[in-house]
């Protein structure tokens, strides 16, 4: 089964955290490669071609951001960032530099695993094309553009479908606000977050049981949005 196991490169200078991550990921049947410096990380990434990178932004020899930028120059491999809560700016910079998602330290095991799986799935999805979503009582078929809740059919506008599609493509992962606007409204409207906010609000009215406490269409404040489905833990 070894070839079916996903390889995760853990880039973290703190040995105890590296150890916890290794135990956790291996228990979930990932193969773990470790790196404690930026230099080491690049060597390991080139030689092992991992399926996913889990990277801490504070590294002894270089900035985690630099690692992400250099890696993105040649590889589309999913990258998940580990960041502290007090370092908002770094988090945004990392996402802008090409990271796919982030996990705030201290992380909980289920959260970390969910993010890792979502990031891996995004890589696979482009070929897999599963287009049916289940959000609580609501079932969404993105191919046929149909939505059905407990009270019957739900009508979504074409714009709303495009937003949901974009989020569903990154199911479980964060989608930056600018990226979402760029894909749905076009690059010339990048600074217009108002239409997006209205659209998300309407989507929540239609899809969420309690729109003021959304369970599926989540806001990542200051960053963007994340769609969660019931399929994952």
């Amino acid at each position, binding site marked *: 089964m070894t070839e079916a196991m996903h390889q995760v490169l853990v880039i973290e200078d703190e040995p105890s955290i590296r150890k916890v991550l290794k135990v956790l990921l291996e228990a979930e049947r990932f193969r773990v490669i470790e790196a404690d410096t930026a230099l080491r990380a690049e060597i390991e990434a080139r030689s092992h071609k991992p399926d996913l990178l889990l990277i801490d932004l504070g590294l002894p020899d270089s900035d985690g951001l630099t690692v992400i930028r250099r890696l993105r120059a040649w590889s589309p491999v999913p990258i998940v960032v580990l960041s502290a809560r007090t370092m908002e700016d770094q988090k945004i910079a990392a996402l802008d530099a090409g990271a796919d998602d982030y996990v705030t330290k201290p992380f909980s095991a289920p959260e970390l695993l969910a993010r890792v799986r979502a990031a891996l799935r995004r890589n696979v999805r482009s070929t897999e094309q599963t287009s049916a979503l289940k959000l609580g009582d609501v079932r969404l078929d993105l191919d046929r553009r149909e939505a059905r809740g407990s009270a019957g059919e739900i009508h979504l506008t074409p714009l709303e479908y495009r937003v949901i599609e974009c989020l569903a493509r990154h199911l479980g992962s964060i989608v930056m606000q600018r990226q979402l606007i760029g894909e749905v409204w076009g690059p010339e409207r990048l600074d217009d977050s108002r239409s997006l906010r209205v659209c998300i609000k309407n989507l929540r009215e239609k899809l969420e049981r309690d729109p003021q406490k*959304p369970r599926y269409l989540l806001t990542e404040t200051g960053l963007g949005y994340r769609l969660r489905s019931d399929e994952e833990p």
Partner: protein
Amino acid sequence: MSAPAETRPDPDQLLAHVQAEEARATRGRLRIFFGSSAGVGKTYSMLEAARAAKASGADVVIGYLEPHGRAETERLAEGLEHLPTLSVAYRGIVRQEFNLDAALARRPATLLVDELAHSNLTGGDPAPRHPKRWQDVEELLAAGVNVWTTVNVQHLESLNDLIYQTTGVRQRETLPDKVFDEADDIELIDLPPDDLIARLHAGKVYIADEVATAVERFFRKQNLMALREIALRRVAERVEAASRALSPERARARIAGDRILVAVGPDAQAEQLVRAGKRMADALDAQWTVVYVETLRLLRLSDADRNRRIAVLRLAESLGAETVTLDGPSAATALLEYVQTRRATRVMVGAPKRRGWRAWLRPSTATQLLHQARGFDVMIVAPAEPGTQRRTDSADAARGATYQTGTPRDRYGWAVGVSVACTLLTLVMYPHFELSNLAMVYLLGVTVAGLRLGRGPSALTAVLNVASFDFFCVPPRFTFAVSDAQYIVTFGAMLTIALVIATLTANVRQQTRVAGARERRTAALYAMSRELSVTRGIGSIALVAVRHVAEVFQCKGVVLLPDASGKLQYPRGEAPESALRRADLAVAQWVVDHGRRAGLGSDTLPAAPALYVPLGDERRAVGVLAVLPTNPRRVLLPEQSHLLDTFAGQIGLALERAHLAEVAEASTLAVERESLRNTLLASISHDLRTPLAVMAGAASTLAERGATLPEGSKSELARSIEVKAREMSDLVSNVLDLMRFQSGQVRLRRDWQPLEDLVGAGLEQLRERLREHPVEVRLSPDLPPVHVDAGLVVQLFGNLLDNIAKYTPAGTRAWISATRDGDTVRVLVEDEGPGFPPGEPSKLFEKFQRGSEEGAVVGAGLGLAICRAIVRAHGGEIQARRRAGRGARFEFTLPTKEPGA
């Protein structure tokens, strides 16, 4: 001490003596090579001594040598270090001058500076710091540099007259005797006149700028002999004084000894009095004080008299006297009072100037002192030259004209007019009234003139009236012949009445005017003191002070204060008048360092446009007041100058007080910060230790007994480790956040955000912990998006919800609601919990306050402090109230407009 009580030393004097000794210890020593004339070899001897000192390893540097171009002198100067001279442009030519700043920077042990009496080029560029070289030397001595210099006897101030009389050459460059007397060493360079003349003929004597004939007149043998005698005598006096000072009994006698008071007036005898005082003080080896009393006559003085008075006081200071200006109704009263407080033993006054009946009517100061002297001697100095008397009288007459309104010519016109009016009236009355009644009309006219017109015009009225009375009324009419001698009495009475009334009126007016001026000064000072006393903060005090000074002295002003390192700075924030931009910080720095005035009209840089006055006492000036008067007289007149000093003193006190208040406040803050740190440490150590104990316990149990524990217990232990770790993590984040807020490091990343997103994100963060606490969200549908830093506001909701999770029992409800309120959204977070502890709920927002006693709940009481910091950073306010019924209620606002929009 067996000394009787009367001779006990004055404590002030003792203190001054001790201070002088102390000052001397750190001061450089002044050594003067003293000669009777140019050419005796002072510079040569000085250089010889310098070479000898250099050979024995001393740090001797030449600061300045007169460029005489004498080969032997120049040879001697070779091999000694020369300081660079300063090129000064003066009237189109460049001269080499002594470079004081270079000397202060080099700071040698001993510095040679030729020609102590030299005057610096005050009009030169760059302008010298002091007008005289001896003042440069004073500064060097104060800086601890030993100075060697040369002086010729004819330059000594007190000998100036004498040498003029002897040689017929007036020396313009003079040196105050004080400098000479206080020199540590005097070395007399003596050369017999014949040898000197021989050297002169051999061309070995450099003649400065004097014209050749003057030189020949000067270098006559009898002149040289006289000068030599004067020089020898002057040095002998010094040697005797030094030996007296060395004997302790004499020293005590000096401290307890004579104190001479020289009272000077505005007349021409003042200078003579001062010089006489100097001679007497030297002879008696006594302290001496020159006193000037400002009486009512002060404001009547002409400019020339005022200037003379300043010059006299300067002269006195330069001769070593202390000078004092007193206020008083009469000179005698003020002097008597002062004599008693200072326990003077002798008082010197000028001889009475009034003679005959005038002296009897208004006794002079000398006479009054003689009558009232108790316990001191009065010495009367006769005027040196005749003619003094006349001058003062004419000055008096001129003065009479200055205090009336209108020009003198107008008033004399009025005087004639009054006479004409009287005459017309008497002509009408003549047929019906007796002569004595007609005389009354004329008398009335004289009275009116006396009241209104001043002395001269009223005297004119008197004369005209008497003449008219004689001409028109006294038979035989229309002639000046007088048939009856009794009318002479009428004339006399009329003239006397006119003069007496005019004089009295003038005096009353003058008194009112002086009192008014004094009153205004007092009022101005009082107004400033009162405003300063209620002003807080050094910056505001400086502004208030400048405003008052500007009003009273009609000038532009600025207060320059030192920064932490003691360097003066322009006030920040306020744009000073462009003219004061020129206020020279270097000059101001000098003023604050030396505690003495500089600039306009003072001893230092007198040509500067602005005057710099130190604020505070001499030992420690707290700042400098720079004033740029629109009319220099407003500041330089003695009484104004005195007032400016008083102002400066008051401002200094206020600044000192503000400074002390700031220091006290800073130390209070430091104490508070310290106690805060202690609370923080105590709080954190408790809140960290508890979870650490749980984690260590649970983890070790798992490690040791993991194999044997049931699955349920294992996951329970692991869960408790996770929970405690999260609590600790939150705590550390909170502390970090608060520190970032306090240090001002938080930069808001504002953006438009729908409030429901922010509330939702907050709820999502706390989802696990709020499982037992249903939170109902009620946002009004018309809410506009808020313009906030999303991360911080989510944290704000998180902290408030976290409190609900911590402090309210499971199962109780909570509500988040929001309504629009003008340009803000008003948010309410309410719960049904136990509410607040007794006391003021707003206290909870202070750091390390918590709803319940320490123990059960972790949190260190930082959550609400952070909430308040976040709300305030967005320009809002957060309040805690008890909820109607039960529970707590937090209310805050978030902006819906961009700041500044």
